[in-house]
């Protein structure tokens, strides 16, 4: 049960939150505005170009995950205990960014090896 002091707390928290919303900077508001228009424009595009790459990326990430589950890591780390959740995430649409990160770190490892 909420008492009067809880109500007061909630009102003050809401006022602080509203204040922080009102104080959002112009650049952020502009980004939000663009996002909204992009969303409304996207209503008609059911198959964005990005999705064409998902099968290719999915196979690449699946191969990577398979290696990581079987082999110990390059730095002596144990093999990755990839559960069902991990696979679902790694093979999902959003894994493209993660794959780019991994490619970057793999490249970094090569550079480190070359320099050393």
């Amino acid at each position: 049960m909420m008492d009067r002091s809880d109500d007061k707390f909630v009102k003050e928290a809401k006022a602080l939150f509203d204040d922080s919303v009102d104080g959002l900077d112009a650049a952020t508001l502009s980004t939000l505005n663009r996002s909204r228009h992009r969303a409304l424009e996207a209503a008609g595009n059911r198959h964005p170009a990005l999705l064409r790459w998902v099968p290719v990326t999915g196979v690449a990430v699946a191969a990577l995950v398979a290696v990581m589950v079987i082999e110990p890591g390059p730095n002596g780390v144990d093999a990755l205990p990839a559960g069902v959740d991990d696979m679902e995430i790694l093979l999902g649409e959003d894994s493209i960014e993660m794959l780019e990160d991994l490619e970057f770190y793999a490249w970094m490892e090569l550079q480190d090896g070359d320099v050393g």
Partner: protein
Amino acid sequence: MSAGAPEFAVSWSGEASTGARALGNEEQLNRFLADVERRALRIAEIAVRDRDEALDLVQNAMIKLVRKYADRSSDEWPPLFYRILQNGIRDWHRRQAVRKRVMVWFGRSGGDDDDYDIVAAAPDPAGRAPEQELENEQAMDSLEQAVHALPARQREAFMLRTFEGLDVADTAAAMGCSEGSVKTHYSRAIHSLREKLEEHGPAGPGN
């Protein structure tokens, strides 16, 4: 041909009315999203502690709402939008956990939280007296950190009820749980926040 003309007229009139309805719907959606986007951004930002990530989450929620639920009644949009956003936030946390494990496998630290710049993420001044503004920012920072530290379901219930102002039924729809669970999570969140903020002195609300 004379028999075809009325048929064409009826068909054209039908398309025009569908087009007008679609335009009207798009305008309504635009108004709804414009009304909700800033609060949604701050809610997402408190949950993930990163403004750029929060902007992405809000944009994805907007796109999914428009694609999947544009034809629903506008009364249904708030709980649907926040359900999509909360699912996005939960997935984001799961992805971060996996990403950290993958980075550890590669021998890299995945401590993204350490990079969070609370000053850069703070809102710009909005014409208030500097002391008042500073006081409010400090109080909001304390509140934000305390809300972020809550268990996920309590955080969702608190932000949807307090910050977005959804009623219990809409919050339950947005969270995908019963109204009783919403009440429990919300009540626990308030008590936990009050305890934490009152413990840490005068910076938080209610002090």
